[in-house]
């Protein structure tokens, strides 16, 4: 039964019909620049060729919503420094293992002898801690508000079950501050946003209301299937055409407008905002990341083991920062597809499938070549 619904969200006939409606909604001579905030959307757009279905004057630019992409080199180095301490089992998600630090990746550190293990969830890391009571197990937590509840629940479970050898190095980030930073940036003129569907299941749509209110740009929170994204684009264009500007929820089958109160509650118990956090390419952004609250300080790996905390500049050749801000397209980066590929990534945007560079590379977008609808 589930496949029936899945097929319907990928129906080519319906897709062409929506593309026709988008074509009918654009004003000739006007250029529309829409940002999809979430890396999951970027991946779907190129996987399904959605870009090719859009009129020439509708441009999609890619936002900072890929959690792996925004981790700065210094934090990778901090993770490696922790992972190479004796007796530590260092755990992280698979994509994170290939993110370059200043000298090496976690995968390379593992090859040199560090006990670094890939996990699918923080719960897997907690299980490792229970199975290895004589070792310290650290979970390197990354992700936006989508993933933070999972980390928070696991930390609560660790404490409730008295698992004393489990800690978390927290790199969770929040989505609203970088969006505000982008909107304040003089480099970028945007006409509207495809809002992040999965983050919104947790935070809801209300946190994005500042975008129409303060910046006069429409937001449509969208799902990840091809017809979801086309539908969201049509909804944004409809707002622009009708002179409306508000937050709309295209993904209402999953996203409640007020989010998930239980998830928000557990996050507020376990985490608190960091005063500042460095984002790759975006620099330091105030109150844009989470750390463990004082109530959970004993489970904070940074407090238990310490980290060097040295800031590392991105490689000069890498233009991930400009890609993450939507200022350039991935194929405009000097090293895209040559020195930087998914197999040998220089920048983070080439590592995760949700990264814009990886999406362009994997789906053959080496230049802007569009077929007219």
């Amino acid at each position, binding site marked *: 039964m589930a496949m029936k619904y*899945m097929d319907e969200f990928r129906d080519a006939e319906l897709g062409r019909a929506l593309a026709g409606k988008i074509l009918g909604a654009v004003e000739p001579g006007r250029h529309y620049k829409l940002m999809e905030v979430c890396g999951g959307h970027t991946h779907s757009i190129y996987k399904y060729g959605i870009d090719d279905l859009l009129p020439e004057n509708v441009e999609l630019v890619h936002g900072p919503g890929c959690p792996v992409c925004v981790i700065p080199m210094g934090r990778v180095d901090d993770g490696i420094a922790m992972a190479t301490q004796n007796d530590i089992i260092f755990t992280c998600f698979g994509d994170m293992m290939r993110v370059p630090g200043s000298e090496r990746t976690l995968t390379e550190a593992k090859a040199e002898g560090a006990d670094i293990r890939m996990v699918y969830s923080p719960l897997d890391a907690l299980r490792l801690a229970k199975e290895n009571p004589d070792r310290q197990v650290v979970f390197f937590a990354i992700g936006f508000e989508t993933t933070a509840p999972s980390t928070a629940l696991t930390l609560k479970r660790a404490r409730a079950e008295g698992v004393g050898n489990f800690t978390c190095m927290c790199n969770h980030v929040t989505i609203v501050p970088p969006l505000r930073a982008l909107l304040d940036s003089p480099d970028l003129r945007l006409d509207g946003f495809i809002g992040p569907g999965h983050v919104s299941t947790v935070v809801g749509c209300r946190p994005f209301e500042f975008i129409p209110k303060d910046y006069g740009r429409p937001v449509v929170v969208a799902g990840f299937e091809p017809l979801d994204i086309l*539908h969201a684009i049509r909804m944004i264009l409809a707002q622009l055409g009708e002179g409306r500007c508000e937050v709309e929820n295209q993904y209402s089958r999953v996203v409640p407008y007020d989010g998930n109160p239980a998830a928000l509650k557990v996050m507020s118990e376990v985490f608190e905002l960091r005063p500042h956090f460095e984002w790759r390419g975006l620099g330091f952004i105030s109150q844009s990341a989470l750390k463990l609250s004082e109530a959970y300080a004993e489970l904070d790996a940074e407090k238990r083991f310490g980290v060097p905390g040295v800031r590392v500049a991105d490689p000069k050749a890498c233009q991930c920062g400009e890609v993450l801000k939507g200022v350039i397209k991935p194929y405009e980066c000097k090293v895209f597809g040559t020195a930087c590929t998914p197999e040998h990534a220089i920048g983070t945007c080439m590592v995760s499938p949700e990264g814009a560079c990886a999406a362009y590379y994997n789906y053959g977008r080496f230049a802007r070549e569009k077929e007219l609808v």
Partner: protein
Amino acid sequence: MRVVRIDADRELALCEADEAGERATVEIALVQPVADGDRLLVHAGTAIAHDRSEVPAWR
């Protein structure tokens, strides 16, 4: 993912992926109440929302 079986005491569920058919243990504490057969949006082993995909928004 679709809920196959629930461990109510531990607030965990055995869930099956729609397309691949792979099964995994999922935290369901944040989306209660949950029943067998429900479809859940799961991130990093934790369900964060119910998925009511029978209602496409463009209808």
